[in-house]
Structure formats: structure tokens, C-alpha cells
């Protein structure tokens, strides 16, 4: 599904974020990308979302070269990917309901579909009682679950979660990871970046380890080894 071919990203002479990275992710996989801060995890994610361009190499989403897409096609690509960030990136002036509904509106879903799906998804991430709360009225864990609800509501083919548990306490971290596992069980590809050993070890799926922009390990059923 995702193919990195000799991808490098150099921000400046001394700052090499990705160094000749080649790997692929198959449909339905759950891949944890681990590494210290600054190892290049977020850069890797930005390459897939075309938020940043590689200095060398190519990134393909199925048969499409992501960085050759025009603005309109890029929007269409992003609609096939659900994204969850460490800092949630919710729309602060919209309620929980509206945040999720916005993602559906972006895809041109009808009012009926929105009215049917949004409460369902919010229930799924256990936010059924916070439907009309604004993000600032919710805890970190709740905000992250809302971000996940938004990411999954359009049933994307791929979910990318960039340090989704970075701002959460252990209990919320556990809950969020369980949600991702459930999503993956339902057939959605998940790419999760983290530097949380407990998270990686509890998932027991493929682990890609980055160090200084290079892939140093790629284990089928890996553990956090650094």
C-alpha cells in the first residue's frame, strides 16, 4: 500500500531527517515506527501526507507518486487517510460533534449520513456523553479519542497516528491503543509512531525502528529494542 524508495530528507547540512529509507507497508498491516525523538518518525509521516517533500527518492500510495500530485488530487488522497496527531489538532471552535461532522462534510456526505454516523463513532470512542463539548472542555484523553473518531469516521484505508499517546497518562494510553487495535482488526491499515515502550510491546505487531534517519530494525512481531 505504501512504498518508500530510497527516500532521503535533508533539512540542512547537519540535520538529516531521513537517510535512504526503503520499506513498504501492506494493506491491513499494523506497523509501529519507533525511535528516539529526532530519529525521523514525524518526517516519515509527513512524507506520506505530502506535508513535506523528500530531498531524494519517491513515496508511492498504491500506484500514485504522492509528491507528483496536484493540489486537488492531494486533497482526494488525504481523504483516504485518517490522521491522529500528538497535539490532537482539533478545530477549537467546533464541538465534538461538529469536529467529526466536518471531516464527513469535507467528503460531501449527506446530512442523513452525518446524523447517522457521527453519534455512532463518538459512542465507539466512548464520547457519547460529550457530544456538544468543545475541545477545551475535554481532557487530553478525551480530545485524543475525539481525534481518532474524526480520523476513522470516513472509514479510511489507512490511519496514521503520530505519537498519539505522547500527551496521555497510562490509562488513557492503554484505551487509545486498544481503539487502534480494534480499528486494525476491522481491516484498516495503521501506521503508528511512538517512543513508548509499553505501547509497542503490548501491540505485538510489526515494528520498524529508526535511528538517525535510518531503518536499523524491521521485525515482524517486534518489541521495542533500542
Amino acid at each position, binding site marked *: 500500500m505504501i512504498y518508500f524508495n530510497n527516500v532521503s530528507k535533508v533539512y540542512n547540512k547537519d540535520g538529516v531527517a531521513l537517510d535512504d529509507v526503503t520499506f513498504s507497508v501492506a494493506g491491513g498491516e499494523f506497523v509501529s515506527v519507533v525511535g528516539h525523538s529526532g530519529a525521523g518518525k514525524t518526517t516519515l509521516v509527513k512524507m506520506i501526507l505530502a506535508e513535506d517533500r523528500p530531498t531524494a527518492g519517491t513515496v508511492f500510495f498504491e500506484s500514485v507518486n504522492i509528491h507528483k500530485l496536484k493540489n486537488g488530487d492531494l*486533497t482526494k488522497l*488525504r481523504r483516504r487517510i485518517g*490522521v491522529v496527531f500528538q497535539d490532537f*489538532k482539533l*478545530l477549537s*471552535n467546533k464541538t465534538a460533534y461538529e469536529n467529526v461532522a466536518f471531516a464527513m462534510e*469535507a467528503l460531501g456526505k449527506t446530512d442523513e449520513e452525518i446524523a447517522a454516523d457521527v453519534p455512532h463513532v463518538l459512542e465507539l470512542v466512548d464520547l457519547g456523553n460529550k457530544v456538544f463539548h468543545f475541545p477545551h472542555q475535554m481532557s487530553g484523553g478525551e480530545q485524543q479519542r475525539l481525534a481518532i473518531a474524526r480520523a476513522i469516521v470516513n472509514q479510511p484505508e489507512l490511519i496514521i497516528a503520530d505519537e498519539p499517546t505522547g500527551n496521555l497518562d497510562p490509562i488513557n494510553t492503554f484505551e487509545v491503543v486498544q481503539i487502534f487495535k480494534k480499528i486494525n482488526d476491522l481491516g484498516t491499515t495503521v501506521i503508528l509512531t511512538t517512543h513508548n515502550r509499553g505501547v509497542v510491546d503490548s501491540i505485538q505487531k510489526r515494528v520498524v525502528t529508526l535511528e538517525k534517519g535510518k531503518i536499523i530494525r524491521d521485525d515482524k512481531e517486534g518489541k521495542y529494542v533500542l
Partner: protein
Amino acid sequence: MTNLRRIIKAGFTNFRRGGLVSWAAVLIVTITLSVITALVLLQAVLSYSLAQIKDKVDVTIYFNVGAPEDQITLLKSSLEKLPEVAEVTYTSAEEALALFRERHKDDYPTIQALDEIKENPLGAYLNIRAREVSQYETIANFLKSDNALTLGGEGIIDKVNYHQNKLVIDRLNSIISGAQKLGFLITLILIVISIIITFNTIRLTIFISKEEIGVMRLVGASNTGIRGPFMVEGAIYGVVATLVTLFIFWPITHFLGKSMTEFWGLNLYDYYLSNFLQILILVLLSGVLLGMISSFLAIRKYLNK
């Protein structure tokens, strides 16, 4: 259709939730619209005063006593054919006498002297008004020209007071055109300044939403879907600011109408009320366009990244 409805709804919701930021933007747009309204009213006062002054300028041709009326009428009709001439009024010798008596009715010695003479010492005259102050010169030249002379003008014209008034007319002419140019220039400068300030304020309100715009893009919203609500919000700033502006100017013009009418010769309150629809359309259009175009331009920067 669904899209448009969602965009408009989102614009209203954002405006409502924007709170202080929304009202700050409305305030700035209100100031801009107030400047525009004030300038419209000022132009009205200025052009009214200028028209008043212009109206006082005229040229009179005095004829000799006993000049035949048909020759005068001939000259009058040929004057009326000049494109520069707005109006020619003929006052016959008898009317001139009656006006003279009327004007001096309290001046007993003059009236007595007039009675003493028995016959009418006054000649008829033509009063000419030009469309523009600057055109009196042309009319005066026409009177000197062959055209007027062949009409027998030379024999019957006693004097034309243009040459006595020339200095005043010339000076007035330069003052009027100067005032109009200056007024236009000041209007232009003030409007440009207010537009720049408004544009920057709206740019700031959108800058605050910079992060949100990024998130919307990541979620997969189309450019129209992102830009639309901001433009609707800009239009709402314009509409609300229009209402506030027109409401503010109601007591202001009322006060000015009461206290300044004699000074200006124009009741500003009456002017405001009788031209309310035109002012409303002008201000509303300026406000809405200003808000929408500013939003459109300000958000472009964040969409093309």
C-alpha cells in the same frame, strides 16, 4: 446546494463563536464605512455650497433705452442656442422700472426724482446664466464676436457687466475647481487608508485561524470548503457594520441638521433621510465587498502552501 448551505451556516457559527475577535473586526469595518459615509455627506455639503455660489454668478447685458424688442429677442434666442448657456431671462424696460421702484420704495427722494422724469430712464436687460462658471468667458466672447454684431447687437448694447465681474468670476472659478480636486483627493486618500486598515484587521482574524486552516486541509476539506465560511464571515462583518454605521449617523445628522443648517444652507438630516436608500446601498456594498475580498485575499496565503 448542500455545500453552500453548510458554508453559510459555518460562517454564521464562526462569527458567533468568534466573540471579541468578530466584534473587533466589525468595529474596524464600521470605522471604514463611517469614513465613507462622512465623505459622502461632506461631498453633498460641498457640492451644495458650490452650486449656491455658482448660482450667484451671472452676466447681464444692459441695452440702450428704447432698443427695439425684436432685436433683443433675436439676440436672446441666439444666446439660448449656445451650448454653454443654461438660461437667459429677459427683463423689459417696464419690468426693470417696476423692479427699481420696488427696490427703492422706502427711498423717497429717488422715487420722487423718477416721477419727475416722467419717462422710463431704464433700458431692458438680458440675464445670462452659464452651466459652468468657466464658460462665461466664451459667452462674453460670443457677444463681442461678429455673430452678435450682425444681429444688431452693437447698436443696442449699452454695456455687458462681464468685464467688471471678470476678476471675481475667475477667482471663484479657480477656487471651485481647486476645492473639487482637493475634496476628491482627500476622499481617495482616506478611503484607501481605511481599506488598508480593514484588510489588515481581517488578515489578523484569519491569521488567528491559521492552525485551524491547516487542520481542515489535513482532514481533506476542499479550498472552497475552507475559504467559504471565512468569506461569509467577512460579509457578515460588512452587514453588521453597515447597520451600526447607518444607525450612528442618524443622531449625528439630526444634530448637524439642527445646528449647522444655517451655516451650510443644507439640512444634512433631510439630505440623509431623503438619500437614505442610496447611502444604504453604497455603504452595504462597500462593507460586504470589503469584508469578502479581504477574507478571500487573506486566506489565499494559507491555502496555497
